[in-house]
């Protein structure tokens, strides 16, 4: 319990908000609202999982917001051109993977710091998309696009189910598949990992590709909720993913992080905006509260480790 103190405390904070809402605004728990919020949280959760791997590897990726938008637009265009949904899904994921590979190649093989690479790609891809689409939605999508053609209820459950299954798989893989262990190894000590026979560059590259692919999947699962695609989708996603990971206990210095802590972080941070609505509070507190939570979470970490040293 003590080992996972951080992850548990985030979860408890989340429960505290739920408790507050249960008393002051029980409408929050209406099935329609819960389903909608969970679907809102799905892309953030998937992106945060990918970001966790990136951070464990001692890297960062601030370009996923732009990747998300591009993947959404390409998926929408594929669908509007009559491609079947499975293919559309592949387009979204592949698009992300390619962009991730570009980032990964520059970081892993050329040694350019990831914050700079992803800063550059974030700006370049975003502006290129803006120039191309000029803010125009992708419309004229076939009926099979929204909810995968399954109808609203089934569609929502499908989206959530996919996310949960993916999450469980990643959590399992990170711990039990050797490839997952490699990520922790490279993040903890690159030289030691290399001496142990792991290729840090290949692992780093793979992590960025995976980040991109997951972003593409997140884009798909978000896009299918609506009848048209907004090219501005995904704005601020990198911030949300990093915040969720950090709040959930992933150490920015690498080598430490548990996915279920990240899930708690996602839940906590995603609940703030709707909580403000339900508690009839002013919307402009959202940013301030999120910033405060990040600082508190990280400060608590720092406080504990400083106390340990004394």
């Amino acid at each position, binding site marked *: 319990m003590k080992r996972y103190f951080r992850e548990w405390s985030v979860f408890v904070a989340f429960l505290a908000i739920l408790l507050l809402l249960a008393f002051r*605004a029980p*409408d*929050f728990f*209406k099935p*329609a*609202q819960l389903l*909608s*919020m969970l679907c*809102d949280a799905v892309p953030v959760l998937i992106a945060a999982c990918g970001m966790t791997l990136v951070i464990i590897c001692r890297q960062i990726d601030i370009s996923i917001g732009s990747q998300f938008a591009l993947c959404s637009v390409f998926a929408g265009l594929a669908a509007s051109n009559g491609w079947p949904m499975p293919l559309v899904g592949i387009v979204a994921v592949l698009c992300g993977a390619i962009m991730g590979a570009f980032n990964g190649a520059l970081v892993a093989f050329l040694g350019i710091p990831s914050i700079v690479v992803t800063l550059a790609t974030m700006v370049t891809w975003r*502006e290129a998309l*803006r120039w191309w*689409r*000029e*803010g*125009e*939605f992708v*419309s004229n999508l076939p009926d099979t696009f929204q909810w995968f053609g399954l109808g*609203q209820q089934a569609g929502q459950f499908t989206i959530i189910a996919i996310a949960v299954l993916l999450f469980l798989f990643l959590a399992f893989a990170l711990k039990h598949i050797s490839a997952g262990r490699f990520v922790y190894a490279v993040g903890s000590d690159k030289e030691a990992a290399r001496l142990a026979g792991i290729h840090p560059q290949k692992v780093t590259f793979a992590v960025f590709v995976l980040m991109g692919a997951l972003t593409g999947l997140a884009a798909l699962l*978000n896009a299918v*909720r*609506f*009848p*048209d695609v*907004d*090219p*501005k*989708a995904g*704005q601020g996603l990198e911030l949300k993913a990093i915040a969720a990971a950090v709040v959930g206990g992933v150490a920015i210095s690498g080598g430490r992080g548990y996915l279920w802590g990240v899930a708690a972080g996602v839940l906590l941070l995603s609940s703030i*905006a*709707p909580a403000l*609505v*339900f508690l*009839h509070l002013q*919307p*402009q507190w959202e940013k301030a509260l999120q910033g405060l939570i990040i600082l508190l979470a990280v400060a608590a970490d720092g406080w504990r480790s400083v106390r340990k040293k004394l």
Partner: protein
Amino acid sequence: MKKLLTALLSVSVVLGAAGTGNAADKPLTIAMMPKSKGNAYFISCRKGAEQAAKELGVKLLWDGPTEPDPAKQNEIVETWITRGVDVIAVSVENREGLSTALRKAKDKGIKIITWDADAEPDARDFLINQATPEGIGYTLMDEAAKALGDKGEFAIITSSLTAANQNEWIKNIKQRLEEKYPDIKLAALRPCDDLKDKAFSEATAILNSNPNVKVLMAVCSPAVPGAAEAVKQSGRKDVKVVGLGLPNENKRYVHDGITTGVILWNTEDLGYLTVYAAKAVADGTLKPGATTLEAGRLGSLEVKGDNVLLGKPFIFVKDNIDQFNF
């Protein structure tokens, strides 16, 4: 470091000798700026503007902020002053802020007109008025009241809390609400940061937390389809949407009966008229005291003081929305 700067300046002065030569007779240059470029609303304005530019044989520059930095409009205007354009036509994001730069341009002899959103009157020569903030605010409130049956609760979804245009409209909406509709209450006001998907989430939360809200008023174009989709997915038949948006994005919801009124004006005409007015201002046809303006295919339009009037806000409803394609 200072040496570097001097060196660079001298190099550039030398290169300046080989710089651009000025053509003997350049076409009139009209620099047109939307509030931001990532918006379908402005795409259609641009279409009309380019049509007019082609008809008139003028050079049209179209640029605007892509970043959220509110001072970006200032920067572009200042650079246009350096470039030397004949007319600057701008849809103003920050009224007081941009007026500073516009006054400077005016002092340098550049003609200034505003369209879609106004600057301070002394910073520009004419305003192309498609609808006053008062007209827009009042029409929105009246449409909402109609959908509510003159009593009940409604909520507003705006773009961002700092957006000047939206705040101006909201001020007028509240004014109209106070004056004319004592039995209607504004239950919530939430921003969507100009994102359709966020508008969807906010609308869903509003519907679930305020069961008495029967009308959602969306005052930025991505929010109208966003809110309507939220109503659709909530399955509630008793909630309606009114808003400021483009016909194409909202056709499906108007036909579904969710969106009862989409308020706008012909944005292509707005862009078209702006360019015609710009040329007229530049060559002196449009000057203080004028009462009409000839604007190509739009015919003769009324000029009232320093306002060129396009017309009143137009309401797209089920019966007429299919006639439009933008």
